[in-house]
């Protein structure tokens, strides 16, 4: 479980390589994903940047509220991030923050800012020389004021975007926009005018799993049914 994950930026590349490009549409999907991966998250409170994903680990420094970070990987409730500055100031793009060699040993040089120096010695990957560390996931929010569109699903997953920093502290205005410009997919219009495809439905049903098979597959990965207390909508679990 200590293995490093592909970063959000490298994921599309990984998929492009590994999916062997099944078709033009998938290419578009992955291309879109690549283009979408760069928006930073922001700390929505003062929070500690730590050396490891646990509360007791050494604190590198305290990040002020609204510090911009890029997600690198996740371990449970913690995200390893690269600090890029406050309010989107991309400090990490300074010349000193060019990816170092693999050992990261030469990156203490000339233009390195103090944050880069601080973390250079423990960084042995492409983020070497950049300020990285672990932050509680729940202390990060999106920082983009998002245009809201009309379409959502009947219970869709992507049911909304927007507002800065959560907690209702919306900055800027949102506006309605009809969705789906120039992209093939499930726009309201395309759905309304679609012809029902009974053959595809039958095919979908042919891929079904059943309880015993799903359980076997879960066990193969050492997933075990767990007793979890009910979650409620008024719990006070903020950390």
């Amino acid at each position: 479980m200590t293995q490093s994950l592909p970063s959000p930026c490298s994921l599309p590349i990984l998929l492009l390589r590994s999916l062997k490009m099944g078709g033009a549409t998938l290419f578009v999907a992955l291309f879109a994903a690549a283009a979408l991966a760069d928006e930073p998250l922001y700390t929505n409170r003062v929070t500690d940047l730590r050396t490891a994903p646990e509360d007791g680990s050494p604190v590198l420094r305290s990040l002020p509220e609204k510090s911009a970070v890029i997600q690198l990987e996740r371990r449970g409730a913690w995200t390893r991030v690269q600090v890029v500055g406050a309010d989107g100031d991309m400090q990490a793009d300074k010349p000193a923050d060019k990816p170092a060699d693999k050992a990261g040993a030469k990156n203490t040089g000339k233009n390195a800012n103090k944050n880069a120096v601080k973390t250079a010695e423990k960084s042995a990957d492409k983020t070497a020389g950049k300020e990285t560390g672990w932050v509680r996931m729940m202390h990060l929010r999106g920082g983009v004021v998002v245009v809201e569109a009309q379409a959502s699903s009947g219970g869709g997953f992507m049911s909304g975007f927007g507002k800065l920093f959560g907690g209702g502290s919306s900055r800027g205005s949102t506006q309605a926009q009809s969705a789906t410009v120039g992209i093939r997919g499930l726009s309201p219009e395309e759905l309304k005018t679609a012809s029902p495809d009974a053959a595809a439905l039958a095919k979908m049903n042919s891929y079904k799993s059943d309880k015993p098979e799903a359980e076997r597959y879960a066990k193969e990965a050492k997933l075990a049914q767990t007793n979890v207390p009910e979650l409620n909508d008024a719990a006070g679990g903020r950390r």
Partner: protein
Amino acid sequence: MKTNMNMIKNCVAVLAVLGLVAASSPTFAFGFLKKFDINKAIDKGKKGLEAFKDITEPEEIQMGDGIGAMILGASPLYPDQNLQRYVNKIGRWVASQSSRPDLPWAFAVIDTPTINAFALPGGKVFISTGLLARLTSESELAGVLAHEVAHVMQKHQVTAIQSARKTGFVQDGVQTYASDRIGKTGVGSNALAGAIANAAAGEAIDFVKNGLFLRPLDKSLEYDADRLGALLLAKAGYDPYGLISVIQKLATLRPEDSAASIVMSTHPTPSDRLRELEKNSATLDKFSGQPQLEDRFVKVMGTVK
């Protein structure tokens, strides 16, 4: 009688949620008084009674088939059986932890850059390649599916369809049923084959054709699905932060990108969803050491053709 009144009150409450009350009520009042037609009134009365009947589980499943056929008519299945089977095994395992473990659960990857996932009545769940391509672990995939399973478990879409039925009763002309229209419109009887050749599926198809499927659900239902989704994820033995991670990824998408803007509704925002989930972080943290399963996910994705 008291029960009926309560049902009507509930109906109005649900319609208010959908924002339909203001638009539909006046039309009903004037239309009905202006020109009284006894046959039409009887017909309306029959439909009205139907509208107040609870949707049974078999009907719910048929409705899911109808909407599912429409979605697949708009967006094809991703043509890789291995991937489809993988998603079904993960989804079925999560659904087995729900209060409706014996529905005919079926999951599908649809080939569209749109970033979204859908749950349909009766246990049909779709995830787009656009969303799948953004995920990095099985716990994230299971998290998306768990959110959708939670919608089905709570019958959120069934409630929405039932509300639309009632709207059809209230406002004549806006909502017609496929059972009336088969053969008269594009939805001819020839098109309604196999699992969707029944009245409930036909009604569901009309639900989509009338643009009602894409209406956002109430915020509270989305929070409900997030909370229950995280619970199902942890019960299935996954790290529940898989779901939270995906919601956080949504927050990094550029809004002006069409793939991202397609499915945005007015609410709730990822920030609001995270804020709601954070209320339970003390409990969720206890299970955050459970597997994320990046390796299996990456391995399966690596075999996708």
